[in-house]
Each structure stands twice: as structure tokens, then as C-alpha cells.
């Protein structure tokens, strides 16, 4: 299959990591892969093209309005590839009625200039095959396609047994693993969850290690959000200082997994909108590539359905600090859950699986070729 990925890529945000994995996995499976557009100087390993002549399928990866190319590329794309060979994967729940949850939303005109019906019409106009990264999309005309995946080859450190993993994890000193807890991701609709976690972590902080937030806008609420009255990018610098939380700006996508390994524990949060929609994200899977113990701050049903039942051991109860202390005392149990979950993810959520699913959803038989 000659697959064209249509989206905007930015080394610092959104789904650039997953796009890289799609390209790598596609090539390994013998597919021809490219991102539509001109080469991005900061992303040298991504192949870009504007040649539409041999495209079997164009996958529109939609998060923000500029994921649709600008002119003249947009007209060339829509004129060059028939509608039946286009598929939209709607990663941010745009193709839904307008949803408001706390400060979170799927449409907000004052932020991007677009109303809900404009999103709906644009997505419908592009393709009749609309997918969302949820096991149970809300709308009947949307089909489930998780898009993001787990890449066993990207696991930073492989362990044969939970005992081996637990021993390595416990033995790591401050130079190798300077943080007790780390969250990597931008401050976008996650503050309430992060604040609750950090407040609970307060009592375990000395025992486990310092907490660290890495991402944009944790240090202070950005001026543009204040001026536009956009909530959901809240933060509390005084509280972060009181809790001794280290704050750093965002990192490139290709530094994330290595960085996560600098902490004993890494929470996985989903923003309120995604929790409601049951969406997965890149970090849902990528966290299991890192050499760390994931803490799944997610609904148990979701965890079972996506990660498998073993991952329930990684879901803390009401007392997060107690969960972390227990993991510190009995790491093997938790690493056993991690290894079982990795095996489940490799089996059920590999990129090879995603290619198969996409081919079926698009009505295209994926042509495998020799691995390159």
C-alpha cells in the first residue's frame, strides 16, 4: 500500500511521535509511506512528498484546523485523490456534538475561529470513512480505530523477568533516576488531575523523590490564555514551589521516552474530553516504552479494555501515595504487571495490527512487500 499521511507535524507537540512510528512500521511492512507536504528541516527522518500519482490511501490525521494543508496543497490533494481513497482519523473528537467538560471542549470558536458544524462539515466533505481513537465512538457513523500504537522495538530496556526489572529499577541511583515522579506533557486541560496527584504525592515526596513536570505552560498561565479567557491551562506556581516540583519546558518528541526513564513513576493522564470519549493518545502507549513504572490515572474499565487485565495493578486506588509506597516496597509485582501489559500491547496494539485494521476499514487490502 502507498499510504499518504496528511497532517501538520511539529517536533514538539501533538502526534508527531506516532507519525514517525507509522512511517517506520509501514516501511518495515513493505508499504510506501510519506507525509504530504514539503520536507520539515527539524524532522529529517520523515519522508515528505507532494506527488499524489501513486497514492492508494490518504489518511487525514485531524487534531487542529491546520492539519488540513493550506493552499495550494489542499486543492491539489482534494482534486488529486478521490473521496473513496481518503480516510479521516479524528484524534481530538472534533466530529461530535459540541462537548464541554470542566474547562475542556472539542470546539471553541474563540480559540481557532471554527464552530462545531464547520468541523463536522469539513470532515464529512473529505471522506465517508471517519475514525476515532476510541473503542466505542459516540456517533454511529464513526468507526473505532485507535491509530496510536505500541512499538515493542521502542522499549528502552527489555527485561526477561519482573525480578530482573524490579532489581534494576530499585538499584538505580539518583544520577540515573533523579526523580520520583515525572509527568511529560503540556499544560492543556490537565491541571486539575495533576494538582490532585501532586497534593497526594506530598506525603511520599521525601521517600520516593522529587516530582517534575515537563511541558509547556506549567510554570505560569500563558498571557494569551489570560487575554482570550481560555481556561484549562491553569497552574499554581506557589503550590508547585511548596511541593518542591521541578518544572521544565517541553521537549522534542524523540526525547520523551528517555526522559521518562529518569523517574521512578510516570502517571498517564487523559484530558477530561478524552476520558469522556474513551480516546487513547500517543502517551497511552508510549509510556510503556519507557524504563519506568507507569501509574495509570485512568478509569479501570478503560484500562482493562485497552491495556488488558494485568494493567489494573498499575491503577492506584484512592490513596496514590500508598500505591507508590507499595510499589517501592514490592516492585516485582508492579513490574510483572508492566511486562504482562507490554506483551498485551505488543499483541493487540502493534502498528502492524493498526495497518491491518486501517486496510479493513478503508476497504483496501494492504499489499505487503519485502521489508526495506
Amino acid at each position, binding site marked *: 500500500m502507498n499510504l499518504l499521511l496528511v497532517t501538520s507535524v511539529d517536533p514538539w507537540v501533538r502526534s508527531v511521535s506516532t507519525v514517525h512510528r507509522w512511517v517506520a512500521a509501514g516501511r518495515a511492512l513493505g508499504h510506501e509511506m510519506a507525509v504530504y507536504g514539503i520536507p520539515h528541516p527539524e524532522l529529517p527522518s520523515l519522508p515528505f512528498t507532494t506527488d499524489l500519482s501513486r497514492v492508494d490511501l490518504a489518511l487525514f490525521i485531524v487534531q487542529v484546523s491546520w492539519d488540513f494543508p493550506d493552499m495550494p496543497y*489542499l486543492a491539489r490533494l482534494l482534486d488529486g485523490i478521490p473521496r473513496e481513497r481518503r480516510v479521516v482519523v479524528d484524534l481530538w473528537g472534533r466530529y461530535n456534538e459540541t462537548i464541554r467538560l470542566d474547562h475542556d471542549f472539542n470546539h471553541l470558536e474563540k480559540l481557532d475561529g471554527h464552530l462545531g458544524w464547520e468541523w463536522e462539515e469539513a470532515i464529512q466533505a473529505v471522506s465517508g470513512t471517519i475514525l476515532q481513537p476510541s473503542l466505542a465512538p459516540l456517533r454511529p457513523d464513526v468507526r473505532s480505530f485507535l491509530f496510536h500504537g505500541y512499538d515493542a522495538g521502542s522499549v528502552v530496556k527489555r527485561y526477561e523477568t519482573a525480578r530482573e526489572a524490579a532489581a534494576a529499577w530499585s538499584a538505580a541511583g539518583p544520577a540515573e533516576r533523579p526523580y520520583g515522579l515525572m509527568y511529560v506533557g503540556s499544560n492543556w486541560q490537565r491541571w486539575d488531575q495533576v494538582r490532585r496527584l501532586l497534593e497526594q504525592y506530598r506525603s511520599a515526596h521525601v521517600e520516593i523523590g522529587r516530582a517534575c513536570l515537563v511541558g509547556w505552560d506549567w510554570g505560569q498561565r500563558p498571557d494569551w490564555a489570560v487575554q482570550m479567557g481560555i481556561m484549562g491551562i491553569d497552574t499554581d506556581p506557589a503550590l508547585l514551589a511548596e511541593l518542591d516540583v521541578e518544572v521544565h519546558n517541553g521537549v522534542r518528541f524523540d526525547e520523551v521516552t528517555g526522559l521518562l526513564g529518569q523517574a521512578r513513576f510516570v502517571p498517564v493522564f487523559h484530558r477530561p474530553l478524552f476520558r469522556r470519549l474513551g480516546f487513547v493518545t500517543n502517551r497511552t502507549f508510549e509510556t510503556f516504552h519507557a524504563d519506568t513504572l507507569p501509574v495509570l490515572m485512568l478509569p479501570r474499565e478503560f484500562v482493562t479494555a485497552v491495556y488488558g487485565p494485568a494493567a489494573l495493578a498499575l491503577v492506584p486506588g484512592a490513596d496514590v501515595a500508598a500505591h507508590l509506597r507499595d510499589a517501592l516496597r514490592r516492585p516485582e509485582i508492579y513490574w510483572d504487571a508492566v511486562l504482562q501489559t507490554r506483551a498485551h500491547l505488543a499483541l493487540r496494539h502493534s502498528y502492524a495490527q493498526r495497518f491491518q485494521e486501517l486496510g479493513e476499514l478503508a476497504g483496501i487490502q494492504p499489499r505487503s512487500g519485502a521489508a526495506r
Partner: protein
Amino acid sequence: MNILFVMKHRGNAGSTHAVANYMRIAPKHGHSVAIYGTPIWYVPELQFSEDVQDFDRVVYLFESELYRIKPLQEVVMLATFPRPRRLILDTDGMYNPVVIVDGYDFNHRNEAERARWIEHLETLGDRIAQTTFARPRNPRVSAMTFYGYNPALQIDPAAAPPKQYDILHVGHNWWRWKQVSAELLPAFEQIRDQVGEIGFVGLWWDGPPPEGSAAGPEEAFRSDPDAFRRLRIQTSNAVMYHDVIQTMSTARINIFTQRPVLRHLKHLTLKYFEVFCADTIPLLMLDRDHAEAVYGRAARELILSGGVAEKLLDALHRPDHYRSVVEDVRRHLTARYSYDRQVEELVAAMPN
């Protein structure tokens, strides 16, 4: 055929009035016309629509700005109307080589800007029409009059507003200063004490737009308010498109000018026709061949080229004679440029 225009719509400039005429006439021929967008309260007669599925064809009308609708709307538009169902209408000569007239007015600042326009237009569609009466040199381009003459809009002298001015110019100060300062002001100087009020209606005669260079080249808005004051020339702001003809009718003489690059490219504008609907004597700052090509032979007498002061006085002194000339021109325009014909021309130009 149901035709949707994608265009920058403004009540006081551009092609909005022409499209309003298409909206009015098209149903008589079994067609419908609307502008993409939401209704504007102060021009309720204009039909707008965002229901693109209700239309068969789209016309992208470009003036001197590469007008774009919102990104997601653009996705819908392009996905709904495939390339063969799009017509590009170039009213300001942008789909041309770089043209600079007398080192002053131009269609593009430079080759890079031109290339951006050409790429955009050629990507949008195969068929490009220009509102010119010259034969386009590019085989991809067809000439289309587009603007039309609507005799129903002629002002009956009995119902015309009182004549507030002897001489009036209706139009924005957009690349017109060179002609106004070189030809009109010296003539006004000669005869100022022999004529009554002189007025300029439109934007930027008192100074450039407050937004500065973002509005366009400084040269395009050059003016001399001191000279206007000295010559007792009144200025007033632009009027809405539906008041243009009425406003022109407040003067005995209306002077017609056209920005140099459009005159050079022989592009038509709506004002070519509006000025002959007004109860006034239009005097045309056009070359003879140019005026004849549009208005017929009778228009020779209305040309304001050389001897401007004398011509102005003659028109003021012999209004009946000039009115009869105007009637000849009106007959020509009615026969050649009715909106009934224009609607047919537009539909015929639409890609099948």
C-alpha cells in the same frame, strides 16, 4: 444552475453590487446566485448561503486581494466542488504578468507576489475569466464583461435629488491621485470661480487609511488635502453600493476615472455602468478608442482628455446637448450589457 460566489463582499466597494444584480435577474432565467457567507443586516437584499450542497457551481471572484475563507470552510468548498465545477473570476488583472503603468500603479509588487497568485488561481481551477474587453493573451483565460447595465436603475430627472454639486467624482482614492492631480486639479484651478460646488465622494481623499502600510502601498493613497481646501473641494466618505447612483445624481457632471493598471488592461468595473444610470452628465477620463469600445461612438463627446477645463464648462453650459449624448450611450449599453445577457454569459462560461 445554482451558482455560489466566494468573494470579499463589501457594501461600499468591489463587485458586490454586480452580484446583487445577478441575484435579482438569475431566477428569471431559471438560475440562482448567492454569496458564500452569512447575511449582513445592513444589506438585507443580498442573498448569502453556507449550504454549499444547494449549489452546482462555485465562482471564486478575486479583486486585488487573494481572498480566503476560513480554513475548514475552504476544505468543504474544495471537497464539494471539484476542480471542473469551479470558475475563477479575476476582476483586477491579477492573473497576468507583472504590469507597472508609468512607474506608478501595478497589479503585483514583484514576481514573487505574482507567482503566489498564479499558483493559487491555477490550483483552484482550469477556467479563468477576466472582466476585460481586451482579448486575453493567455489561452486559459476568457474575457467576460460580468458587470452590466441595468436600465431599471436609471434615475428619472423628475425624481432626481437636488443638484448639490456642479462637479462630482465618486470613487476611492486608490491609485487615482496621479491623474487627479495632473489633469483635474489644474483644470479646476482655471475655472474654479465659474463653477459651483465640487465634491469627491469616497475613501482616502483626506488622507491614507489609518492602518498604514497594511492597507496597501503608500503611493496608492497619495492625496493633497491642502490643495483640496484651496480649491474648495468637498470630500465625503464612501456610500453604500445601493446609494452610489443616487449620490452621482446630486451633481450636474460626474467625472469617471479608473485606476491606471485596470485602464491599461482594459478591465471593466461596475462604475462604467453606474455612472450612466445616474441623472448626470458623465465625463470620461478614458482614451477615445477605449471609450468607444465600451460605450459606442456617441461616447466620443463625453471624453475628458485635453482641454479639461473647457469641456467641463461646455457641459455645464449645454446640458441638453450632453443629455442627448448620454441617452445615445444608454441605448447602446442597454442593448449590449443588460444583466439578462450577463447572466447568460456567466452561465455559459461555467464549466460543464
